[in-house]
């Protein structure tokens, strides 16, 4: 007599949480832009038996953006989830996994990220600044000024911009542009770059050194610029996930699809 089908898994069952952990690790490990995402809720789980000790698992996950850029070596457990007031970004992911002899592996994933609605935030936090478009002229000006300021003062490697992560513009009490962006060290010192910046290229993958910068530029009523850049140090790249290999600006807009 065939074994009775096992009771459907609950979304908070240990097996579901184990599958979700594998899925979130895969999503972060295969994402090349933006920030790491943490699990907020398992929306649904469906297990389709394929045979003895062989199941296909369909997961619907609700994720939240953390403050760690995707290139940061910080373990996800140490990454803070962005608060509602910081204008949170949500990720909705559908993930297909296989559980074969108890071992979980991801077969496919599709995610869509979107920032929380500005209306919701203003309703609950009228003074909270909202995310600005990464193509905004003031944002681009602030990033360019911040990176130039850092490169003019550092005695280390000349840094190139990899991507702008997020930006906010506030008008009160001063007109302020806050930006976060990912950078990478080049093969030049900042001093040498002054003579021939065109020669400064990103380091090859086996020597890559990525970093992250935050900057605040006040344009009115006073002028002020504060920049903080931290390099992560060389990380051994995961062979099947090529790091960025070219300078230039790419935008990680919340509201993007990744598969």
């Amino acid at each position, binding site marked *: 007599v065939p074994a009775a089908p096992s009771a459907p898994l609950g979304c*908070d069952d240990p097996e579901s949480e184990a599958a979700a952990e594998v899925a979130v690790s895969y999503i972060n490990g295969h994402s090349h832009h933006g920030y790491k995402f943490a699990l907020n*809720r*398992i929306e649904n789980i469906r297990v389709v038996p394929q045979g003895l000790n062989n199941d296909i698992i369909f997961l619907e996950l609700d994720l*939240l953006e953390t403050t760690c850029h995707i290139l940061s070596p910080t373990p996800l457990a140490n990454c803070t989830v962005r608060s509602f007031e910081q204008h949170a970004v949500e990720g909705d992911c559908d993930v297909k996994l296989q559980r074969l002899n108890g071992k979980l592996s991801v077969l496919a994933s599709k995610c869509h990220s979107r920032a*929380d609605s500005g209306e919701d935030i203003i309703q609950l936090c009228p003074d909270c600044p909202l995310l600005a478009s990464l193509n905004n002229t003031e944002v681009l000006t602030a990033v360019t000024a911040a990176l130039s300021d850092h490169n003019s003062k550092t005695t280390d490697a000349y840094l190139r911009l990899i991507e702008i992560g997020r930006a906010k513009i506030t008008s009160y009490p001063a007109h302020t542009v806050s930006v976060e962006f990912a950078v990478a060290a080049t093969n030049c010192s900042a001093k040498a770059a002054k003579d021939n910046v065109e020669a400064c290229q990103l380091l090859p993958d086996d020597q890559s050194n990525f970093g992250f910068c935050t900057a605040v530029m006040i344009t009115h009523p006073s002028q002020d610029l504060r920049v903080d850049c931290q390099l992560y140090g060389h990380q051994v790249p995961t062979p099947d996930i090529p790091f960025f290999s070219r300078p230039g600006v790419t935008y990680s807009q919340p509201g993007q699809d990744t598969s």
Partner: protein
Amino acid sequence: PVAKRAVAEVAQHDKVPRPVGFLPPPPPCPGKIRHFKI
């Protein structure tokens, strides 16, 4: 032929009384929210 065996009606007093206020188990999904709901 297989005839369904008549099952004697369970005597009233044998029925397992339902505990007062019996609540159905929580739905299996969606699961708990770990941070906050957007």
